[in-house]
């Protein structure tokens, strides 16, 4: 093969909520795909952190989620749409240290209130649409930038 394909790549995944035994697997699959399509190491690292955090938010808080990975001419977009409790106050959820995770989950080292801050730091653009009692859709965009 010579060079990247100009065609837009589209993949779908599913995250099961509350199942910690397979938590992180969607992030791992996405990471392998990004390696196969030749995304830069820096981009892969940023996407790995952001998708893992978003995946864990689903596992910790929601019932399930559909994940879409789109890769297109230098932009990689990941959308995670869950059925879950929604986020009552998104600005509060973005603050480092804020978490609604249970004590049990915190003991596993989750719920440090670093999830959304990590996502915001790693992604080039983030949008969050949420409805309390229905669910949350987070869309993260990453420029496939070469190593700085």
């Amino acid at each position, binding site marked *: 093969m010579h060079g990247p394909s100009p065609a837009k790549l589209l993949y779908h995944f599913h995250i099961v909520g509350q199942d*910690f*035994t397979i*938590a*992180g*697997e969607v*992030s*791992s699959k996405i*990471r392998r795909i990004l390696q196969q399509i030749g995304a830069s190491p820096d981009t892969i*690292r940023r996407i*790995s*952190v952001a998708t*893992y*955090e978003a995946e*864990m938010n689903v596992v910790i808080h929601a019932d399930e989620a559909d994940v879409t990975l789109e890769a297109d001419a230098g932009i990689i977009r990941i959308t995670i749409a869950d059925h879950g409790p929604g986020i009552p106050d998104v600005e509060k959820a973005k603050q480092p240290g804020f978490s609604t995770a249970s004590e049990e989950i915190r003991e*596993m*080292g*989750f719920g*440090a*209130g*670093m*999830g959304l*801050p*990590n996502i915001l*730091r790693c992604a080039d653009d983030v949008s969050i649409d949420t409805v309390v009692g229905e669910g949350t859709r987070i869309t993260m965009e990453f420029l496939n930038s070469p190593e700085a």
Partner: protein
Amino acid sequence: MKKVTNSDIIRLGQVVADIDLADAGAAAPGDREVSGVYCSDLLSDVMGGARPGEVWVTVQSHLNVVAVAALKELAAVVICGGRSVDVSILKKASEEGVVILLAKQSAFEVCGRLWELGLRHED
């Protein structure tokens, strides 16, 4: 003070031998290069702060540790305080190429020994 330079690369096998860690039997430590150390029990803190090639020192010993170590391309996870790890963790770590090391010592002791070897987490 002894510090890591390009001419003084520290290999994982050397770390295991020098501070008396036990290889839990997932991926083999071998001659992976160790770039530094990160110590934390909060997974998101590791996701945000650890760098590729670092050794992660923690007391967490559940399955999700493997996912974090793999995604962050860490050299190894050192599980401290004499904790044991479940077979399911070793199986997953083998699949993902993650090295799991066990320390009888506390995380503090392990970090102190790693510091003495010249390893750092430079900002």
